[in-house]
């Protein structure tokens, strides 16, 4: 089965499209993507929370050796994004690698996150890009 099988694409669509995180009713902490149990305390009492779409870059890494299907996006910038209630790892786009700085404000953008060759599914999800104005 492909990594992005139709079933997986379908099952994960809501949290990929709308930044829906899991929030633990027991310890109160949020996590993304939502899991079946809280990664911090193990509780299975969870509900969902929509994350803010603006955050800050806590850290980042520039990946030059990308898979061939991502060569047109190389180098890929992977960021650890602080959204206040939780943190997540996502691609940082629409910026030159030399212009990325820790602490920069970034906003969520809806993008293609995977394309299965010329005939398979296009998988959409959230990436982040620097807020440049306002």
């Amino acid at each position: 089965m492909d990594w992005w099988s139709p079933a997986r694409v379908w099952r994960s669509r809501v949290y990929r499209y709308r930044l829906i995180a899991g929030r633990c009713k027991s310890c109160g902490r949020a996590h993304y993507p939502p899991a079946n149990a809280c990664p911090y305390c193990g509780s299975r009492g969870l509900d969902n929370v929509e994350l803010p779409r603006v955050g800050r870059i806590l850290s980042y890494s520039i990946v030059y050796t990308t898979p061939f299907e991502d060569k047109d996006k190389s180098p890929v910038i992977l960021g650890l994004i602080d959204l206040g209630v939780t943190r997540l790892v996502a691609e940082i786009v629409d910026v030159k690698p030399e212009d990325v700085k820790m602490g920069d404000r970034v906003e969520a953008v809806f993008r293609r996150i995977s394309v299965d060759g010329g005939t398979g599914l296009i998988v959409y999800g959230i990436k982040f890009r620097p807020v440049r104005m306002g």
Partner: protein
Amino acid sequence: MVLTPERGAGVHGWGVYIPRFRISMQEIAREWGWPDHQWRALGMIEKAVAGPDEDSTTMGLEASLNAIRRSGVNPADIGAVFFGTESKPYAVKPSATVIAEAVGATPLTMASDLEFACRAASEGVKASIGLVASGMVKYALVIGSDTAQANPGDVLEFTASSGAAAFVIGPSKGSAAVFEGSSTYVTDTPDFWRREGSRYPRHGEGFTGEPAYFAHIIGAVRDLMEKLGLKPSDFNYAIFHQPNGKFPLKVGEMLGFKPDQLKLGLVTPFIGNTYNGSALIGLARVLDYARPGERVLVAPFGSGAGSDAYSLLVTDVVEERRDKAPTVDYYINDKIVISYSIYAKYRELIHVIRE
């Protein structure tokens, strides 16, 4: 169709998305050996280029989120999502469902991808007015979005660009601009086409002007003004489809509009022809600035060919909606200028063997 306020429809929210990347006319001309007068005659400066992970669906979703933010509407109350494009990511699989899901309008909603070259989204506007005015849906979301294609080296490459506009259409009451009426003018005119499986469109060169663009827009606008008993001087702004920076000024002049009425809604010189976004991004820019009581004419055009003309009256509500999302000027000014080689890579003009 002439709408009365009691059973009418209006724009509750408007929003756009323009990708960050720009390529200059000089850069394209240098690459393909065009003389400067070729692009200067088009009235163009730069065009917007979608990034390698963007397509008409991603841009349409960003514009939709901005339109919904401005409207304040609960996405669950959206009963129809119309996605107008001529650059569908899939030949078979709707983009409207992706957008409906991502904004939170699913599952109890219509969702349709529409096709009529550059005026597919405008068909969605007209259908939405009908659905809302008849009471079949409370709100409709209409999106025009394209990553416009052009054969590399074709003169069309100067203008074909990427961008999106979206509108939440709902009852007249509470809207920022009320539709006063509309008119549609279509004929079978082969001015521009793209066959199934073909990557780039073909066009009839000079034939795209007089019998197509000008005849259809003039036909729709004159019919609308006659039905509503209005004349060009009754409008504060007029926005026409913008395949380049020259045609909208010319058609405006032919219809009796003054340059001052056309200037605000003319966005193509800065971002290029966004196809289904073209006139609708112009309308969004006008709503970014319009004052209550002002009247707006907008006339999208699509090859094949047809044009719709709409008259809108701006209401007091426009003032409170304006600042709830980024303006068209925000997106126009937020740019990174790229070279032809980066443009070619981003728009997949370079042949790469993929599995």
